[in-house]
């Protein structure tokens, strides 16, 4: 179904190849996992398969690719889209309409599907991703995980024979991940050819018939899967650093609260992991803790400050919040300046760069880094300021196993040195490694374990 022969590619203005002599064959109905560390060339391979390279992204391309027994040479991206469906890595900025149903219909309209067939295909594709309840929702109100499901539904509605999915598990909660993997397994058994580009080898390796492991643009034998990371050590918990007292929150124009009467404490030296389905309010809870959103009821104490009575910048002198999307927090022209800002000295900059695998990138512009590197950079900038509390939103997205291990190791040191950590994650391995305790947001309430 897919045949790749002697494929090499070098981006324009780059000195080294992103892919080097890659060769593989994939049969119809096969589900193949394409994995490898950050920057190994996975996304480049995907972009070549969908013809974005070289038609939209210039560079030197060598080798040949066949899809459905036809050479893809000379095809445009939209011609290729008839044969091969491609789910892009980042679900932000890929939507064209306001509502979920219209978004799924958009591709069908482009493929000239008769209007009388559209409703069935939209409902069917949403049912496949267990997203029927999202049908009439506005896209702007969906969480990243819900949006990822909608984009997958939009792809499935087009019914191409080959699916290429770039990091489809990134924002999915554990339950949604399991449903996704089962769905892909079922589709491949029905004859669809599926390529999944993913860091999360542990979640997919059991289902994929084969794995293609890329390192530095070449196919290499795959290393062992890291099914778990070294857990952070237990420290004696001390004074309370973050406290929620009977906190309720509802959106401005909604009667039903997102959560009601939530109370919990996080103490010094403690690491608490926030769990919950997509859209359960994990990020909102972090916004509340920093004073970026206001609760309807209740009291929040962050680092001895009552939220709402002091300014956000006063709270952020003692607490750091690392966003889900790092781009909004990067504002300096060099990586080293991003960490140095404030009263951080040069030694601390080098220490953080080394601890989080960013050495050698000091003089790079932060925007030129990969998504995983940007995330580690925003974390390094937060750690260098030596806050009492760090709120960490989805730290594992875009991280390969080795990078994730580095992050966990550094966070362990942060806890040892008196820090406190509240992490929101969908990654079960991260939750296992970081949690002294977990808080699960569920049906407007919470459950502590």
């Amino acid at each position: 179904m897919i045949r790749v022969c002697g494929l090499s590619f070098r981006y324009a203005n780059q000195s080294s190849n992103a892919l080097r002599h890659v060769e593989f064959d994939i049969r119809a109905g096969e589900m193949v996992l394409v994995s490898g560390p950050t920057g190994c060339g996975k996304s480049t391979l995907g972009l070549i398969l969908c013809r974005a390279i070289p038609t939209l992204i210039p560079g030197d391309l060598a080798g040949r690719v066949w899809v459905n027994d036809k050479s893809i040479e000379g095809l445009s991206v939209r011609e290729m889209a008839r044969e091969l469906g491609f789910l892009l890595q980042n679900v932000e900025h890929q939507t064209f309409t306001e509502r979920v149903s219209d978004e799924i219909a958009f591709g069908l309209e482009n493929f000239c599907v008769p209007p009388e067939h559209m409703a069935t295909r939209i409902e069917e594709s949403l049912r496949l991703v267990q997203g029927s309840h999202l049908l009439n929702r506005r896209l702007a109100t969906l969480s990243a995980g819900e949006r990822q499901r909608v984009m997958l539904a939009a792809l499935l509605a087009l019914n191409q024979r080959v699916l290429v999915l770039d990091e489809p598990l990134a924002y999915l909660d554990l339950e949604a991940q399991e449903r996704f993997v089962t769905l892909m397994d079922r589709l491949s058994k029905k004859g669809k050819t599926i390529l999944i580009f993913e860091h999360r080898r542990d979640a997919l390796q059991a289902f994929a018939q084969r794995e293609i492991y890329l390192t530095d643009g070449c196919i290499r034998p795959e290393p062992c899967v890291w099914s778990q990371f070294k857990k952070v050590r237990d420290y004696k918990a001390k004074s309370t650093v973050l406290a929620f007292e009977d906190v309720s929150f509802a959106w401005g124009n909604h009667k039903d609260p997102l959560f009601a009467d939530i109370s919990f404490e996080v103490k010094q030296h403690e690491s608490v992991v926030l769990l919950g389905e997509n859209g359960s309010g994990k990020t909102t809870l972090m916004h509340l803790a920093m004073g970026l959103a206001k609760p309807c009821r209740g009291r929040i104490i962050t680092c001895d400050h009552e939220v709402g009575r002091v300014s956000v910048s006063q709270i952020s002198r003692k607490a750091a919040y690392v966003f889900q999307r790092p781009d909004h927090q990067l504002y300096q022209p060099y990586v080293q300046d991003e960490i140095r800002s404030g009263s951080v000295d040069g030694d601390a900059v080098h220490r953080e760069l080394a601890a989080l695998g960013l050495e050698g990138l000091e003089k790079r512009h932060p925007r030129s880094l990969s998504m995983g590197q940007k995330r580690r950079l925003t974390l390094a900038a937060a750690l260098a300021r030596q806050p009492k509390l760090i709120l960490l939103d989805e730290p594992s997205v875009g991280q390969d196993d080795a990078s994730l291990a580095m992050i966990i190791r550094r966070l362990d040191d942060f806890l040892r040195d008196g820090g406190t950590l509240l992490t929101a994650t969908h990654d079960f391995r991260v939750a296992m490694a970081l949690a002294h305790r977990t808080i699960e947001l569920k049906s407007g309430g919470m459950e502590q374990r």
Partner: protein
Amino acid sequence: MFLHQDTPATIIHRLHPFTKMAVGTVFSGLALCLYRPLALAVLLGFMLVVLAVARVRLSPRQWFSIGLFLSVISTLNFLASHDTCHATAYAMRFAVFLTAVPILALTTDPRQMTQALSQTPLPGGLAMALILVWRFFPLMAEEARQMRQAALLRGSAAGGVAMRIYRGMLVPLAFCVIDYTDRITLALELRGFTPAQRRTCHRPLKAGAADVVFSAAALLAAIVSAWVQWEGF
């Protein structure tokens, strides 16, 4: 992500975009011709009722900003003309323009706009470009909101006010625009969009009874305002 909940669609949301465009254009044109405050108040009153029916809610800060803007306009006008009536009419004319824009922008989704534009002789590519621009502003507003939050968290560590605006807002926003353009181009092509090709339509737009009622009410408001201006009180 930090989320906002769904707002329900109202009768104004369901109107044909051309009906809203026509009313907005006619009212803006008429506002340019009227000079009596009471006549302009009729138009403004109609627009405010439409905004209320459409459940367009403004925050106290937005009301304050609009009020301040209109006060400045009327004060400057009064200083130039020494005519209270003229200054009031001038500010009210601005208020009519200001209300006409959100009626269309906040109650028309891009899909409706695409379909409405595709019924015109505009080339398909141009129609899609207009839609993407239509979507661009709310998306960038959301990006700017998150950047503001990041700037708040940084506080004075980011330097002086000018540096904070330049590095904290303008530079990230510029990157964001470039990123948006790249992504959207690729995403459009991956979803099989071709500007020139024929497309089918999931939910065709039709003008209905609500459009007739809305147009009639708007026409009545226009006639009353014209009567107040040229015949009236």
